[in-house]
């Protein structure tokens, strides 16, 4: 156990992986000399050199595709895309190639690739740097999607991702980088397991990534109001730990899903549908969602905050179920 920030946890995990496995290398925009747009890779160039810490031109599609090719060629690449909005430039490679190759080749080829990127809003970066599109990626069979919300998970899920035989997309909510917490050494996590962050009997609050902290604060406020909320951190959107979700809702009979992404077609809708399919008879109230407002992310602080789920809006949604 060591106290560190989320940013350091990601960096330490990459360092550990590169020390342990010569096949692992990092590439992306400004990951080397600049030290990473979010300073995640700061210091790695000095230790591993430019061969393994590779700055790329601004060509997301090709350096993500090159990650796929390198994985096919026997390497264990980590590709950093600066933000999720930029990852759209690489959607072709991720969706048409990374996700399909194993199946399309009849199982002959796999793509053990880790693609990391920052996601989410809350930093007044407006409508081209703030969205939460991880749910789009979770739509796609062939890739795995992890969303660490804690320092320990940032490390654990990254190391687990590098053990996968398949492409993993890791979404790091940008407001989490300075978050401090305990990082656990040595444990290899299993991708696809949610975490029970708080036990409660009255309602299941289901969140992931940047929404987890707000959800936990909401749970604390609800406790003051006499509502005992359970909090589930999904950690992985694909595969999704449906079992834990259903078990929890079966105990509490109520569910509220919290997500920064837009409500329409969002990942919360998927979770909601799983609950309907698997725990309908246990429900004592309709499943509720607290999601981002249906608007491109505005710049002004008050507007941006209003566009994001907040502990207050979560509390209100929960109260509406009783």
């Amino acid at each position, binding site marked *: 156990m060591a106290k560190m920030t989320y940013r350091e946890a990601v960096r330490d995990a990459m360092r550990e992986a590169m020390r342990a496995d010569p096949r692992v290398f990092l590439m992306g925009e400004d990951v080397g000399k600049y030290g990473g747009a979010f300073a995640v890779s700061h210091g790695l160039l000095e230790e591993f050199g430019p061969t393994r810490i590779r700055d790329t031109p601004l060509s997301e599609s090709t350096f993500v595709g090159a990650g796929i090719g390198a994985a096919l060629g026997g390497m264990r690449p980590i590709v950093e895309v600066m933000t999720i909005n930029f990852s759209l430039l690489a959607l072709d490679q991720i969706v048409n190639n990374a996700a399909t190759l194993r199946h399309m080749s009849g199982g002959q080829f796999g793509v053990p690739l880790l693609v990391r990127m920052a996601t989410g809003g809350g930093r007044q970066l407006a409508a081209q740097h703030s969205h939460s599109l991880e749910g789009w990626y979770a739509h796609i069979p062939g890739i795995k999607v992890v969303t660490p919300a804690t320092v320990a998970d940032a490390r654990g899920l990254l190391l687990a991702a590098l053990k996968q035989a398949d492409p993993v997309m890791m979404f790091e909510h940008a407001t989490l980088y300075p978050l401090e917490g305990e990082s656990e050494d040595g444990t290899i996590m299993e991708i696809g397991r949610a975490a029970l962050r708080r036990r409660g009997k009255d309602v299941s609050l289901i969140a992931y990534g940047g929404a987890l902290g707000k959800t936990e604060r909401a749970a604390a406020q609800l406790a003051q109001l006499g509502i005992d909320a359970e909090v589930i951190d999904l950690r992985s959107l694909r595969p999704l730990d449906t079992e834990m979700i259903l078990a929890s809702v079966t105990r509490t*009979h109520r569910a509220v899903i919290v997500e920064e992404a837009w409500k329409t077609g969002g990942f919360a809708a998927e979770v909601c549908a799983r609950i309907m399919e698997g725990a*309908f*008879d*246990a*429900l*004592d*109230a309709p499943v509720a969602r607290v999601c981002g407002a249906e608007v491109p992310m505005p710049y002004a602080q008050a507007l941006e905050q209003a566009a994001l789920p907040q502990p207050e809006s979560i509390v209100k949604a929960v109260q*509406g*179920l*009783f």
Partner: protein
Amino acid sequence: MPRLGADMTAGKLVKWLKRPGERIKRGDIIAIVETDKANVDVESFLEGALEKILVQPGDERLPVGTPLALIRTEAGAEPAAPAAVAAQAAPRVAVPTADAASAMVPPATVAPAAVAPAAVPPRVVPTPVPPAAAGERARISPAARNRALELRIDPATLTGTGPQGRITLADVERAAQAAPANTADTRQLRMREAIASAMARSKREIPHYYLACTIDLGRALAWLAERNAGRAVTGRLIYAVLLIKAAALALREVPELNGFWIDNRARQSEAIHAGIAISLRGGGLVAPALHHADRQSLDDLMRGFQDLVKRARAWSLKSSEVSDPTVTITSLGERGVESVFGIITPPQLALVGFGTPLERPWVVGGQVAVRPLITATLSGDHRATDGHRGALYLAAVDRLLQQPEEL
């Protein structure tokens, strides 16, 4: 399990009256089912042979729609297609009541009123159970519904405390804790809750209008006295039977008051089945049907009426009696009230009420005279009819009662 009332969601199978292999004619009573309101006979609307009994009598509350037995019909001649059983009934409520709730405890002699003409027997629909109309579905969470089934609590008897009045798990648990142990009490309690639910719904959904009309009963009572004179007690008529017949016949003239409000529109009934409000000892009431009240003789109506009262109090009404009424007639005569403005039994369209006949000064031919007067009232569903039609109806009742010999 047939649905024997709009609010019925489950029932217990008390007894089978037919054995496997036995022939069954249309209208045969094949089983007895206990609802929250009564033990009810289950009639078969099919002809054939009882192929197989699927459910044995017991304490289990079976949801409406549960197949109870298979009847092989001959019409089909298709042996692989036995018709699933059971009587089926249109979704009709059997619980009318009046605003004057305090007057509900009945004396030994009942004083309901009644009646009506009518026509075709209810059409048989061979599916086991009709789904409840969308608008009638109570808000209840899936968890609460399941818990209620487990605890054998009829959700229809519950009042929801959740958002939008939804019945929640907590409501069911509370009801379970409050439920009394003894069956008779439970039955009463459930009936009370069923009445509460039906009446609350009626007041919530049906925009009532109320009309009243004072009718001179002098000629009718005089005719009745003359007719009863010299007859054995068992052959005598009571005046309530005249009221039932008049009320039923008048519906032929204003048929839009007879029938149901289903799926946002009025559906007139060709048959006139008068639901007669009968209060029970220990509280509560039912309003089983006198079928085709408009077509029965006064003597038949009298017999039918007495039989209904007896069986209602023994909790042994037939399913069709409970579910068929197309209108409700209530009389609080002999309780001393002058008039009753009743609450319509959903999904019916109207309720006819009669107060106590009282001797009053009344102007007859320019002279003040003492006459026995009765106040007839009509509660109408304003979605289906307007006061003008209602007024024509009460006028018809008045006119009919002035010619008792024609009834």
